[in-house]
């Protein structure tokens, strides 16, 4: 190699180019990620310490945006809504997903067909889901009106118009959309469980319930981890569904951090505060995703 380099310098350029080719092919991606992911993160981080309003500006104000952010009632609402929504969303999706996976794992007929039905909402846009459930839950024409029409005239179901209850309608629609996905994750986990161990426990006389509680569910821990990470990160990013279903209302009753960030940045012209709220969202997601990616990539080695 070194001999040919000195003997034929032109060939060496070609050789070196050839050796570098994989890196050259990868370099646009590296540049794109460096600029559009990490560069932009740094830019928004910087903006969160500036007096930006309608447009980015670079007057340094220190922690002031963060201090203001935590004094804004709407942010308070958004954060507590996220806690309520996120917890219920994750718990109900996991419970329902696990139940459906166990039901489907009983050697039933038409499993593929039923699985397809359970999972199809995942292929829809949150906007479509939002529109469908918006009118479905609307007291004027939806479930309430239908049940009243059937003769139960005192029936009430007006959560979507009710400040106290509206956040739960977001949970209802989001669970409908994603629980089939969680089912698929658990079903894949169930299929990976060692059947010999199941048989041994069955011979020992363990009841079906004990079998699941003692042997199956503990082995689903990795599936639980993945489901938690995916659902938590979807909950934090939830934006489309809220916009389509309630528009953040009534009032600010269903405001979430994602909708707060958008309205403060682009309609209220408080870009500094909007950037600060985005940074907090990123930190929350990073706290969940980074340890997960770390462990996954280390296992791979």
């Amino acid at each position: 190699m070194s001999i040919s380099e000195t003997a034929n310098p032109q060939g060496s350029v070609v050789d070196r180019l050839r050796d570098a080719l994989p890196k050259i092919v990868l370099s646009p991606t590296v540049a794109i990620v460096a600029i559009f992911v990490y560069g932009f993160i740094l830019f928004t981080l910087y903006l969160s310490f500036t007096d930006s309003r309608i447009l980015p500006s670079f007057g340094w104000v220190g922690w002031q945006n963060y201090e203001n952010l935590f004094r804004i009632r709407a942010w308070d609402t958004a954060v507590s809504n996220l806690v309520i929504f996120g917890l219920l969303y994750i718990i109900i999706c996991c419970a329902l997903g696990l139940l459906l996976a166990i039901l489907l794992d009983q050697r039933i007929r038409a499993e593929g067909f039923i699985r397809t039905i359970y999972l199809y909402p995942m292929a829809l846009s949150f906007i479509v889901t939002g529109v469908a459930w918006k009118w479905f839950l609307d007291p004027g024409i939806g479930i309430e009106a239908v049940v009243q029409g059937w003769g139960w005239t005192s029936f009430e179901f007006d959560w979507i118009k009710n400040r106290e209850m509206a956040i739960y309608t977001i949970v209802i629609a989001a669970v409908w959309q994603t629980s089939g996905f969680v089912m698929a994750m658990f079903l894949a986990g169930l299929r990976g469980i060692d059947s010999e161990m199941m048989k041994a426990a069955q011979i020992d006389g363990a009841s079906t319930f004990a079998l699941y509680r003692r042997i199956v569910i503990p082995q689903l821990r990795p599936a639980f981890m993945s489901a938690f990470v995916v659902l938590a990160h979807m909950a934090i990013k939830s934006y489309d569904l809220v916009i389509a279903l309630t528009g953040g209302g009534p009032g600010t009753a269903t405001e979430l951090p994602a909708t707060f960030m958008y309205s403060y940045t682009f309609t209220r012209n408080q870009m500094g505060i909007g950037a600060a709220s985005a940074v907090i969202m990123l930190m929350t997601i990073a706290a969940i995703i980074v340890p997960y990616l770390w462990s996954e990539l280390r296992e791979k080695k």
Partner: protein
Amino acid sequence: MATTHAKSGNSIGRIVLYTLLVFFCIYYLLPLYVMLVNSLKPLSEITAGGMMALPQEWTIAPWLSAWSSAQVGVEATGLRPYFLNSIIMVVPAVALSTIVGALNGYVLTKWPFRGATILFGLLLFGCFIPFQMVLIPMARMLGLMGLAGSVPGLIFVHFVYGIGFSTLYFRNYYAAFPTELVRAAQIDGAGFFRIFWRILLPSSGPIAVVCIIWQFTNIWNDFLFGASFSDFDSQPMTVALNNLVQSSTGVKEYNVHFAGAIMAALPTLLVYIVAGRYFVRGLMAGSVKG
């Protein structure tokens, strides 16, 4: 005695099992049923409280209206131009991110270098960031590039943030591809691109389908980027549908809204019905790796 007891208990269990399974089928299908039947009946039947009933008078007028004459935002164009916007946006964005993802996966697995795993980790983290974090600088960047408020701008954005997932798919797929074949071809004098073209690409069909379906579904269904970076004439379908439904002027035409919602759902739903297996594989690979 014990066996008959177990058997009868079993068949009761089976009945309960199938009842539950059917109940959940209804639960998942009900909103689709509601959308479909109400898109085919006159508005008066809906407002009279007949949302769950089949149409008394069947009509496709709501579909025609949603497609070509309904008020979307300020103009009465129907959803047709926005449907076309979405198609023009989705095809190049999917193609670009898939091609780049395939090349990245090839390099990361067959031409590894120091720091490849860290680089991949950084790339992967980019898939999960809340996009609120990039909205402000991206709006500025698109302005600088002269792409603000345009369909090419949206193509660019979706391409950029689609690379992470497509790289993930191809990397995990190629990692299982025998490296000896690549080395053997190298010894025979095949170059970087020839190996990719002749050896890896011919067996990449399944993962390419997975990747294309995932990107198509994600980009078609996106709302945040569409709402942030488009103008009236470059809005994608999801944004237009939301405008149609939220427009506060006049009577709320629920039947037209439902027809529009089905139109927005139809492309991804069709893909799901035709190639659901690959869609599920993509979902799983995006969450549970390996």
